[in-house]
């Protein structure tokens, strides 16, 4: 059964069979909402664990709808900074700033959560702003204004307070190289095939002597939406 399934969907990772749900019970995640007359009786709650080689749980993921999961590619990106070799990205450049924005994988299913990264590199002597900020400055942010995205969140690194003697103010700044990591939840359903995810980056770059006006850079990252596959008929 699992062998056929693995071959049909070209699955390279181990698939384990817990026929009597004994391991599911030992984890305490048996779904007790399923009547014994239903074939789904014995299924687990849809939990994912990231486990260290010694068996200690590093992270736990739970997406309430069992049809939607956090992509392994997002977990690899978030936890280990690893993106697939095929993962798409675009590079944006303005003045002293270069930003590479990319996704954790080049393929995804509707309803799935995928990872997104933005790698910033600023020339020496330049900075962009973190938050909180006075109204007359613009903080660095990334946003996807794409109708295919249901939910998005981003983790910004900690900004360093920098004293501006001329202004008499201390403001949070980012300089050198830094990285924003985020996640995008795709809507369900979506048409499958080649598409793009559209977003924009907002920032204001300044040096010790010059402050550029706030900028907005739009970008589109290619992504292939995979068709849902129907399980083969029972033999």
């Amino acid at each position: 059964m699992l062998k056929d399934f693995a071959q049909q969907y070209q699955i390279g990772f181990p698939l384990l069979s817990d026929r009597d749900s004994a391991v599911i019970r030992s984890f305490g995640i048996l779904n007790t909402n399923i009547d014994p007359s239903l074939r789904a009786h014995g299924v687990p709650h849809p939990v994912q664990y990231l486990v260290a080689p010694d068996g200690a749980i590093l992270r736990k993921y739970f997406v309430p709808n069992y049809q939607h999961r956090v992509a392994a590619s997002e977990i690899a990106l978030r936890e280990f900074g690893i993106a697939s070799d095929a993962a798409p990205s675009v590079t944006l450049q303005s003045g002293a700033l270069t930003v590479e924005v990319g996704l954790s994988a080049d393929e995804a299913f509707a309803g799935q959560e995928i990872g997104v990264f933005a790698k910033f590199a600023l020339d020496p002597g330049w900075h962009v702003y973190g938050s909180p900020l006075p109204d007359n400055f613009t903080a660095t942010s990334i946003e996807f204004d794409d109708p295919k995205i249901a939910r998005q969140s981003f983790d910004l690194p900690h900004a360093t307070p920098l004293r501006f003697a001329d202004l008499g103010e201390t403001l949070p700044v980012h300089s050198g190289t830094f990285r924003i990591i985020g996640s995008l939840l795709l809507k369900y359903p979506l048409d499958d095939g080649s598409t793009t995810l559209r977003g924009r980056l907002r920032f204001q770059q300044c040096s010790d002597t010059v402050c550029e006006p706030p900028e907005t850079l739009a970008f589109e990252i290619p992504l292939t939406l995979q068709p849902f596959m129907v399980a083969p008929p029972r033999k």
Partner: protein
Amino acid sequence: MTDQLPSDLAEKAAIMREFGRLRAAGAAIPPELQAKHVNATNDGYATGPEPGQRIPEFTLPDQDGASRSLANLAGPNGLLLVFYRSADW
């Protein structure tokens, strides 16, 4: 181990059967039914051991019939363990 079954199983089963019937027929699932189905399956959900704790020991057969446990599954960064329903349906 005896599983404590909730008292409203019949009601949940009716929702799951209707959901399964529409899905098997390839019909559109009304959003209200989709929501009821998700709520019925998630009621009182449990997510098992917490970060920092160790996972229970296990040994299970893989798709090639080989016996697998943490020791022969984990790579240098460890293991992503995903619990899912079935490869049969």
